[in-house]
């Protein structure tokens, strides 16, 4: 029988982490994601699988514990919310420089600064463009449901180890706090040390006489070697851009106008699509699931089909820059966002789309004597 439960997004993520065969969680509480640590503790994850669950003394300690665990080839993660993720940026850059695989969860709240505990999507730039220093990218997954909060724990670890990269799950307070139905999978067993040594020969698992030392460091003062290291990183990001793009098309086939939105904004736009379609408007939604790699090719294709694109984000306009780069001027791209923890309503975003594209089109076409069905 299928194991189906009603869970909060944060709890579903924590359950997903346990079932993915995770070895260690290091974190520090912050609203609106504290349920991750609480759930792991209440579930006695340490007894269920033997994984480590540790409340560190700070976010900075957490991210460096992740560094240590990842260097040993362990499946490790941390989770936090916006101000805590800012504290971790130096550690994230070090993980990038050493190509250590790990999972990071940001349940975004409104900023800047301590901001608010309400949902926001204003950390897109930080996650996608690199919040730490240096030329690096992380794979960024954007869940739009509680089921995806669960699913992306395992997917995140899989992608992290496949590419030796950090995978950030960019969620928000709404997805983290709401409850929905979740279908759970069987437990994936944790890897043994022997399996890790065999599968990941780069890890610092103790030198044996038959091999050289493994050194995990991001420091190399020789600029020639450092450029080679950087070129190698860029090749990896390029390969990820070519092979790991994920997105969902909702009613795009005959769409004349398009929403682009991720996470909880995508859910709101999905309802707006329904409301618009009920009134005869041909509206679709492209939901990026990976924010890096961004579904640029898909958007370029859709820009040949639609008359206008509205990017909806709970930010002052961050992802819209990537939408505009993808579309490259082929079609008007507008942005609509609410700030500071306010969540837009479905009829609100539909109204903005109509005001921006449809009403205007009707006026200009009727002025030109053209006919148009509403």
């Amino acid at each position: 029988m299928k194991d189906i439960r009603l869970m909060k997004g944060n709890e579903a993520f924590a359950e997903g982490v346990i079932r993915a065969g995770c070895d260690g969680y290091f974190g520090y509480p912050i609203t609106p994601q504290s349920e991750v640590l609480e759930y792991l503790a209440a579930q006695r994850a340490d007894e269920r699988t033997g994984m480590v669950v540790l409340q560190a003394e700070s976010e900075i300690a957490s991210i460096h514990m992740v560094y240590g665990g990842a260097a040993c080839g362990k499946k490790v993660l941390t989770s936090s919310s916006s101000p805590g993720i800012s504290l971790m940026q130096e550690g994230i850059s070090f993980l990038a420089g050493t190509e250590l695989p790990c999972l990071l969860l940001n349940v975004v709240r409104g900023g800047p600064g301590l901001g608010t505990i309400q949902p926001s999507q204003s950390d897109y730039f930080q996650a996608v463009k690199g919040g730490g220093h240096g030329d690096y990218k992380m794979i960024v997954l954007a869940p739009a449901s509680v089921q995806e909060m669960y699913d992306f724990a395992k997917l995140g670890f899989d992608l992290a180890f496949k590419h030796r990269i950090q995978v950030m799950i960019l969620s928000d307070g709404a997805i983290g706090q709401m409850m929905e139905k979740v279908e759970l999978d069987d437990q994936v067993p944790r890897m043994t040390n022997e399996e890790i040594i065999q599968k990941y020969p780069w890890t610092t698992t103790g030198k044996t006489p038959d091999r050289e030392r493994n050194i995990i460091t991001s420091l190399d003062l020789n600029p020639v070697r450092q450029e080679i290291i950087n070129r190698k990183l860029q090749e990896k990001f390029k390969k990820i851009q070519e092979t790991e793009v994920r997105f969902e098309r909702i009613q795009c086939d005959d769409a004349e106008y398009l929403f682009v939105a991720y996470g909880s904004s995508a859910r709101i736009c999905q309802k707006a699509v329904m409301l618009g379609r009920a009134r005869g408007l041909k509206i679709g939604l492209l939901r990026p699931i990976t924010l890096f790699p961004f579904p640029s090719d898909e958007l370029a294709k859709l820009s040949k089909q639609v008359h206008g694109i509205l990017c909806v984000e709970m930010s002052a306009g961050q992802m819209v820059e990537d939408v505009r780069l993808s579309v490259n001027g082929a079609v008007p791209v507008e942005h609509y966002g609410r700030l500071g923890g306010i969540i837009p309503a479905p009829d609100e975003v539909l109204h903005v789309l109509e005001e921006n594209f449809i009403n205007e089109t009707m006026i200009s076409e009727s002025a030109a004597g053209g006919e148009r069905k509403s």
Partner: protein
Amino acid sequence: MTEEIIIAGFGGQGVLSMGKILAYSGMMQDKEVSWFPSYGPEMRGGTANVTVIISDERISSPILNQFDTAIILNQQSMDKFENSVKKGGLLIYDPNGITRHPVRTDIDIYTVDAADESARMGSAKVFNMIVLGAFLKLKPLIGPEYMHKGLEKSLPARHHYTIPENEKAIERGKEIIQPKFLLN
């Protein structure tokens, strides 16, 4: 069928848990469900509200500003949500502590004296189940056997002995709900 509900009142009245029991019961009856709470400072004593959606189809937005039904349990929530009920929709409220009663004439309005009734039943804790019963009388979306399963799933095992008392409160709510203003 899609029913979009807002439940709103004070923190501590059992608003969030009423929503959770409703959502869990819906899920046990194979419905699609979502539960989206106000969280944070509100949970620590101020106003609390939760949006619950029960549907036969995949739920699009769990976050809404218009509802089929509003269940309102204090004055602040009345001020905030009376106008969020869709035309032809339903508003249920406990008049206890309400100083400004609803004035809409394009929706059905019912009252349930749940605070008084829970005192008569000798347990303030069943207040929210009386309210839930009142709702289920008007919108029988979920069968009693699934409500039972929902209670079992959402209450921790150490509180399972309270299930009969909760079910009695649900039945009592169905009996005491009163029309205040009806469209037809």
